């Protein structure tokens, strides 16, 4: 049978699609969209569940976030080293949970997972003197530590640091 270039047979074996259909309805895999959209859609969903490209993966946001702001210069505090610790309630010793560096926006996405974020006393340690040193300045505070208590880990907590060379402030945000 002669086929015009506007039409192509569906390569599947479904009897319904043995007939010709408009080429425009073919999906990327060459199957007719009305039945086989689900195939490409399944591929798409698989890509979300088992992401090969982690950048496009939809990770759950961290229940704890921070944001460093350089209030002296009116810019985010980027490339600042920080660490998060949790205190053992029985021994009162501190355990390091993660060491990170703030990004260009002064943030650390994915600071902690929901599973790791249990109730307890936490400590955020910011390397403030190193930060100012990298810009050729001194800082009155060699480091800043903010110790806070998490009673309800189901909530979201935002612990920012607004910093200059001689002052800093923090607050509990969301």
């Amino acid at each position, binding site marked *: 049978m002669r086929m015009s270039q506007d039409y192509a047979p569906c390569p599947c074996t479904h009897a319904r699609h043995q007939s010709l259909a408009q080429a425009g309805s073919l999906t990327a895999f060459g199957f007719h969209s009305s039945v086989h959209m689900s195939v490409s859609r399944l591929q798409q969903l698989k890509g979300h569940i088992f992401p090969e490209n982690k950048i496009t993966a939809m990770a759950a946001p961290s229940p704890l976030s921070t944001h460093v702001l350089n209030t002296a210069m009116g810019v985010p505090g980027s490339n600042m080293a920080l660490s998060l610790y949790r205190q053992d309630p029985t021994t009162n010793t501190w355990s390091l949970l993660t060491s990170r560096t703030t990004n260009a926006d002064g943030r650390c996405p994915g600071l902690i997972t929901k599973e790791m974020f249990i109730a307890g006393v936490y400590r955020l340690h910011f390397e403030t*003197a190193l930060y100012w040193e990298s810009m050729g300045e001194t*800082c009155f*505070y*060699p480091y800043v530590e903010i110790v806070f*208590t998490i009673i309800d880990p189901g909530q979201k907590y935002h612990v920012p640091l607004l910093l200059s060379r001689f002052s*800093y402030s*923090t*607050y*509990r945000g969301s």
Partner: protein
Amino acid sequence: MMSESSPLTSHVLNTADGVPAARLPLSLHRLDPRIMIWTLLSVGTTNEDGRCAGLISREAFGPGMYKLRFETGSYWESLGQNSFYPYVEVVFTISELEQRIHLPLLMSRFSYSVYRGS
């Protein structure tokens, strides 16, 4: 009345209630750089004006790393309230024999700020 002779002073303010933070315990420590241990220098409690006199003598306040620890959690507890911060520790560096360092703490139950004043 004798003027404050300590080269290091602080002033704690309860910004939530707009009052000085009275009867707040605090302590001053210095880091021993040889063994990296904090040495307790003095303890005190803020007066009705949120201040604490006699934290350190001029002779003792040499260059080094110091820590002022404010028992903010105990303070809020004594007012029947909880607080996000069990305590506040401010670590600062003295690089030369300083005339005066004033380190106020402005705090509420869910926020605080410190600055180097005069």
